[in-house]
């Protein structure tokens, strides 16, 4: 090695070592997380796990539970949805093509995405699995809908099945028991997508009375580095009139909202949100929150209420003044993508009425965080305790067998977990 190259390597190592050490994530759970000072890096830590197949292993579960693969050998399964007759839909999206690099850093980011996400080329289909006797072994499966465009969210209202592609909400006619839909979807409304489409997963749910749909539209950047004009209509939850397709922003400032779902007792909309990167290993905490109509949750101008982010220009003190803090921190960079309230009866009684959150896991933190499914107890429609680990073992040292994404509760009360790196859907039931 030439001395100059050696010098460069030492230089890089020294810079990479600069920066605060991660704190215990437990300090950032619940309504009042500890927020350390910001740290802007020269070289942000990237700690990427190596993809390693599950083999005969499975994730680990908390006491009193058991887990087995409900479906395996899938292609990038990212969300699961249970139809009223018990059929399970599994969405296999292929993320949109990344845009051409805007600057040299994008080459590094695209390599990182490739390293940490499912390498399986997905067909952009939705699969259907039928497990009539509830033993966790589907007797039947089929391709339910083909050739979608990076689909993620699914919701059924009456006989209308809605799929959130990355660029539009489509409506398909559905009859109970149907195992495939061949007619093309009808577009209810367009969603912000190309050409950049940074956060492309569009989460979807319907109001309890079925008149409105809610779609999560993630930001088009980490923190406006693609320009403010790329963020129009993004980092928000859209409310869409089901009859007309008319839409408006129901709540804003939510960097990447996913897992949209109504709390069953109070009928309030909740979501999990991925917060911004590159302010340190412990900023900004990702969160679980009820979503208030018309509220502004800070992104991009501020985080956790009114902590101003200096990276955004021009600043908007007027908007910062109106920003509200979310309800419940999940700690930093856990990347929550799935949320479901437990309405079944199979799992132990302690899980009833609470929320499960699927944490896809960190990539920009020297000590991994997330890579598990946690449970948050609820009482009277509000979180009532600390998160508990329910499903772990996705990581094994520096090896990553899987990453949890979307969650659902099946008609027999099992908890379903889409695992987009392990290419499986896991099912958790009482032991």
């Amino acid at each position: 090695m030439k001395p100059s190259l050696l010098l460069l390597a030492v230089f890089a190592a020294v810079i990479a070592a600069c920066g605060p050490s991660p704190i215990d994530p437990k300090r950032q759970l619940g309504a009042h997380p500890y927020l350390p000072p910001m740290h802007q890096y020269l070289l942000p830590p990237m700690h990427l796990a190596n993809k390693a197949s599950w083999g005969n292993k499975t994730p680990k579960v908390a006491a009193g539970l058991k887990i087995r693969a409900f479906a395996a050998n899938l292609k990038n399964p990212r969300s699961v949805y249970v139809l009223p007759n018990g059929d399970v839909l599994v969405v296999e999206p292929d993320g949109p093509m990344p845009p051409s690099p805007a600057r040299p850093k994008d080459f590094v980011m695209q390599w990182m995405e490739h390293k940490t996400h499912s390498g399986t080329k997905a067909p952009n289909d939705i699969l259907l699995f039928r497990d009539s006797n509830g033993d966790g072994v589907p007797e039947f499966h089929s391709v339910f809908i083909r050739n979608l465009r990076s689909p993620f969210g699914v919701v059924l209202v009456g006989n209308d099945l809605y799929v959130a592609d990355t660029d539009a909400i489509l409506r398909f006619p559905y009859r109970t028991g149907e195992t495939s839909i061949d007619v093309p979807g009808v577009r209810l409304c367009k969603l912000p997508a190309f050409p950049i489409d940074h956060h492309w997963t569009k989460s979807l749910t319907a109001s309890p009375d079925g008149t409105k749909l809610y779609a999560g539209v993630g930001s088009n950047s980490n923190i406006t580095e693609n320009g403010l004009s790329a963020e129009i209509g993004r980092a928000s939850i859209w409310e869409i009139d089901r009859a007309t397709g008319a839409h408006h922003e129901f709540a804003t400032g939510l960097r990447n909202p996913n897992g949209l779902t109504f709390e069953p007792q109070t009928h309030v909309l909740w979501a999990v949100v991925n917060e911004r990167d590159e302010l340190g290993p412990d900023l900004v905490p990702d969160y679980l929150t009820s979503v208030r109509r018309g509220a502004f949750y800070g992104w991009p101008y501020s985080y956790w209420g009114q902590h101003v982010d200096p990276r955004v220009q021009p600043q908007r003190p007027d908007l910062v003044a109106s920003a509200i803090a979310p309800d419940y921190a999940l700690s930093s960079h856990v990347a929550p993508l799935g949320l479901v309230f437990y309405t079944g009866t199979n799992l132990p009684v302690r899980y009833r009425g609470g929320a499960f959150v699927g944490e896809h896991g960190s990539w920009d933190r020297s000590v991994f965080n997330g890579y598990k499914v946690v449970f948050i107890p609820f009482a009277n429609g509000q979180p009532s305790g600390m998160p508990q680990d329910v499903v772990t073992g996705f990581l094994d040292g520096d090896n990553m067998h899987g990453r949890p994404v979307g969650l659902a509760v099946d008609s027999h009360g099992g908890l379903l977990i889409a695992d987009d790196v392990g290419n499986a859907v896991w099912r958790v039931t009482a032991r």
Partner: protein
Amino acid sequence: MLADNPRSTAAIAGHPIHVMLVPIPIACFAGALVADVTYAETADMQWANMSAWLLIAGIIFTVLAAIAGLIDFFGEARIRTLRAAWIHVVGNVVVLILSIFNELVHSRDAYTSVVPAGLALSAITVAILLVTGWNGWSMVHRHRVAVLPESGP
């Protein structure tokens, strides 16, 4: 004086490689400063992106120019006796190091990728380049480094 000018070792058919390469990083780093100033004025990300590209190109061509330059520097003892040559070499090593830092600063997201650290580093880089460029040119027009002997009729 004939055939007695300090010679360029890294040359193609008598044409020194170093002087063919140096305009590129100079233009890139000067362009990066202009892009940074424009970004600081407008907060339009295209200027910050342009600066990041100019910096990476400047770094790559600085390394290439430095390889050719150092071959000349170590290949000809008479070059190493010139004070201007030492200022040129040391100054441009500083330029390279600062620009690597600057590229890292520019890899941050949005405003703080430029303001204030990136902009300051770009300005310091250009200021040093004025000194090293001046001394580099002195080596040629004053000390006749790599200038061919007159071969008139």
